[in-house]
């Protein structure tokens, strides 16, 4: 292999003077954490639109009874790809993208600990995603059956065995997720090492921004929880290609074991996905309340507690498979236990706002909506943790409503808050506030209209994953309402994308510190230079920028 020599001092053209091939090279070959972070986020947004369109088709199909927009096979593929995409190709890259972009800036570092591994992580994630979507072309496989995966996002055995899942679509599901998972683990490892080893002088763990803390625990969960999925998928590959018997019940194998393995990954994964929202709220709410985060130590304790307790709650997804009553009791209790640290977080965010000088800009609006919606999601979660209740509503639309409240009402609202908050840092331009408000209100209205009725439908007995229903079940009205909400949600997303494009082109200049921030990322220019900081900063409190802005009243006089 010939190595390429780079001249040490290349004349550096100004931005906008690059040729197309140079620009391409700068993006493809980059090891800069900020570029990789943006690439992750843009890719995630693309997949978000694709999976959102799939959801819209499903809602169109379910809007009326006996509808025939798509057939049952297509519907199965739609919900499988929707779920898989949203979890693995939207949620995970958002985790990686946000932590990539912000963690080094917040801890005063110039790059991640392993910049090349970081680039590898992004690309292998992207290729994994493309491999999954290649199933639409190549999924027919050897025997010519199927196209996209249609086994549900948790791919229960024995539905995934060769006998029931012919063709190669399930193999594409396994391999695509496995490959993307390598990227997630690589990026999580990188975040952990960066946080532990790359902090600027004075940035002790107690002074570390809450965002970095949450992302550290999030990455911990990723490296603990993702390998079980990879292991289970390797077992499934062995079953499908080498004739193994892991999940083959006819040879004494256990289909329930797949469920255990999947949910050992699957439940921590839910926390992995919601943590970025926690991280964003912990930064945005204090800034827009003009108060330091309430109960910092308790917040750190709560997030660490979730990082451990959430590893022991997985079987609450399996109350209906007939476990022993002791298992049911244990997992019901541990699931409720998670509610305590989560409750601490909600209380502390609220307490941060209490008595503060609130500025209701778009990021803060999304945070307020998060608090309410995530609270509802948490309460329905507690309901479902009661195993007899779960037996009634397992696999019903109540569950669908519950987890969409966590993942959209929680995660996506948090992500919007984060994107509105840090967009000026990444681009130097402010997102349009007026469009932001439209975006917010349309999204809130659309979200509530779509997902509140799902709870009712679940209680009325509508099961998940059905592609249509008879008109005499009493489900028509709420299904129609739910489908109508999609219009407002789609409009909100379209507005956001337009807002991003328009603001990059001709947005208001943001300046380096548009929100009067306190963490280090606001101390550098917008967008930050490749080296982030000319001099590595020295930190003496958890709000280094406050200290600089208020030399007569610095935080370090009061902390510790």
């Amino acid at each position, binding site marked *: *292999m010939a190595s390429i020599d780079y001249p040490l001092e290349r004349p550096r053209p100004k931005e906008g003077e690059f040729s197309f091939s140079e620009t391409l090279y700068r993006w493809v070959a980059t090891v800069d954490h900020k570029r990789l972070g943006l690439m992750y986020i843009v890719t995630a947004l693309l997949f978000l639109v694709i999976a959102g369109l799939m959801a819209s088709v499903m809602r169109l199909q379910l809007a009326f009874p006996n509808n025939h927009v798509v057939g049952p096979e297509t519907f199965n593929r739609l919900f499988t790809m929707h779920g898989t995409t949203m979890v693995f190709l939207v949620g995970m890259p958002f985790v990686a993208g946000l932590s990539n972009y912000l963690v080094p800036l917040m801890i005063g570092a110039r790059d991640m600990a392993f910049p090349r591994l970081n680039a*590898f992580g992004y690309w292998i994630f992207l290729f994994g995603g493309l491999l999954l979507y290649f199933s639409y072309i190549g999924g027919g496989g050897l025997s010519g059956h199927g196209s996209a995966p249609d086994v549900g996002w948790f791919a229960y055995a024995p539905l995934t065995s060769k006998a029931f899942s012919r063709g190669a679509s399930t193999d594409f599901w396994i391999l695509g997720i496995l490959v993307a998972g390598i990227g997630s683990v690589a990026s999580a490892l990188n975040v952990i090492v960066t946080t532990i080893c790359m902090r600027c002088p004075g940035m002790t763990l107690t002074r570390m921004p809450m965002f970095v803390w949450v992302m550290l625990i999030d990455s911990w969960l990723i490296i603990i929880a993702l390998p079980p999925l990879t292991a289970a998928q390797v077992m499934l590959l062995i079953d499908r290609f080498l004739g193994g018997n892991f999940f083959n019940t006819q040879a004494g194998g256990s289909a329930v074991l797949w469920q255990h393995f999947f949910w050992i990954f699957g439940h921590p994964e839910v926390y992995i996905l919601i943590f970025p929202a926690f991280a964003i709220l912990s930064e945005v709410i204090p800034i827009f309340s003009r108060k330091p985060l309430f109960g910092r130590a308790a917040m750190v304790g709560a997030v660490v507690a979730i990082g451990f307790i959430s590893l022991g709650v997985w079987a609450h997804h399996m109350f209906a498979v007939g476990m022993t009553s002791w298992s049911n009791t244990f997992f019901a209790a541990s699931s409720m236990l998670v509610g305590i640290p989560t409750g601490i977080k909600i209380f502390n965010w609220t307490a941060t706002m209490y008595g503060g000088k609130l500025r209701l800009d778009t990021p803060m609006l999304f945070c307020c909506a998060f608090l309410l919606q995530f609270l509802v999601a948490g309460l329905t979660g507690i309901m479902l943790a009661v195993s007899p209740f779960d037996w009634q509503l397992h696999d019903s639309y109540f569950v669908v409503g519950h987890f969409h409240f966590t993942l959209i009402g929680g995660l996506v609202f948090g992500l919007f808050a984060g994107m509105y908050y840090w967009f000026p840092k990444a681009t130097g331009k402010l997102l349009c506030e007026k469009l932001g408000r439209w975006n917010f209100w349309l999204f809130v209205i659309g979200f509530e209209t779509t997902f509140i009725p799902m709870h009712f439908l679940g209680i009325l007995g509508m099961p998940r994953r059905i592609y249509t229903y008879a008109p005499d079940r009493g489900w028509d009205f709420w299904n129609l309402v739910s489908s109508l909400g999609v219009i407002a949600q789609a409009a909100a997303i379209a507005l956001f994308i337009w807002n991003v494009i328009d603001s990059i082109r001709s947005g208001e200049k943001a300046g380096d510190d548009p929100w009067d921030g306190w963490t280090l990322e606001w*101390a550098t220019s917008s967008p930050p230079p490749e080296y982030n900081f000319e001099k590595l900063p020295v930190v003496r409190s958890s709000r280094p920028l406050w200290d600089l*802005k208020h*030399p007569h009243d610095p935080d370090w006089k009061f902390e510790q």
Partner: protein
Amino acid sequence: MAHETHHGEAGEHSEQTHIEMPAPTFWPMVFAFGVALLLAGIVTHWAVSATGFVIAVCAAFGWWHDVIPHERHEEQPIEPALRPEPILVETRSVVRLQLGEGGHRRRIPEKIHPYSAGFWGGLAGGTAMAGLACLYGLIAEHSIWYPINLLAAMVIPDLGQASIEQLRAFNGLAFVAAFIGHGVISVLVGVVYAVMLPMFPKYAPFWAGILMPLFWSGLVATTLDIVNPAMNARISWPWFVACQLGFGLVGGFVIARSTSISTMQAWSLAERAFLEAPPRDEK
């Protein structure tokens, strides 16, 4: 990454002209592509895997050359144009509020009614309510014992099956049960009123006297079927609401007349622990 020897405040300028940053490289991307192809071959064709393997090995060597013997760096020039704006110093100084200082985290209400007011208010309200209920019994069923027996049916299930005549007649046991039950509930509700009354806006007795009984009636209306089916079957809702209003207005009036006392929130920790004499109430 080069060891940084110069630290400074966030956003400070440095005398250096260049900063060492990791050099761009596309080998990680190629390696990722190779690994992805290698695995994709499992489900497509072995030739894909073979290609992927070759690509991955080549990329691994390329990556190897990037980091061994030394991680490849490039010198990023520091561009003065990209320097952050200077951080503006806030000249206003901030005075920190001390614990117990006026206005600092004041909890509302600052003054509350004593529990004793609640006790007496509850008794007064309970009397008014009982009087109205007996009036109802006289007018509707020509017996003051009728509502008393109905109330007692909550704890004496036999009364649930009793006929109208039996309900009209005096029943000693029922009377005692109803008397105790009504008295205890009245006092408890009275104390709750006393606690809540300072939290209402202006004209507290009005709100507490009119609105709360209505809420309470609504709550009873939905649950009465479970706690007292006999009463639920025979109850007259207009009279019931009237009795509740009587309780609310009389009780609220009695409580509002009491002298408010201030909470301990303005006291220091030592005062609250009675290590020091508490400050005298201004009144």
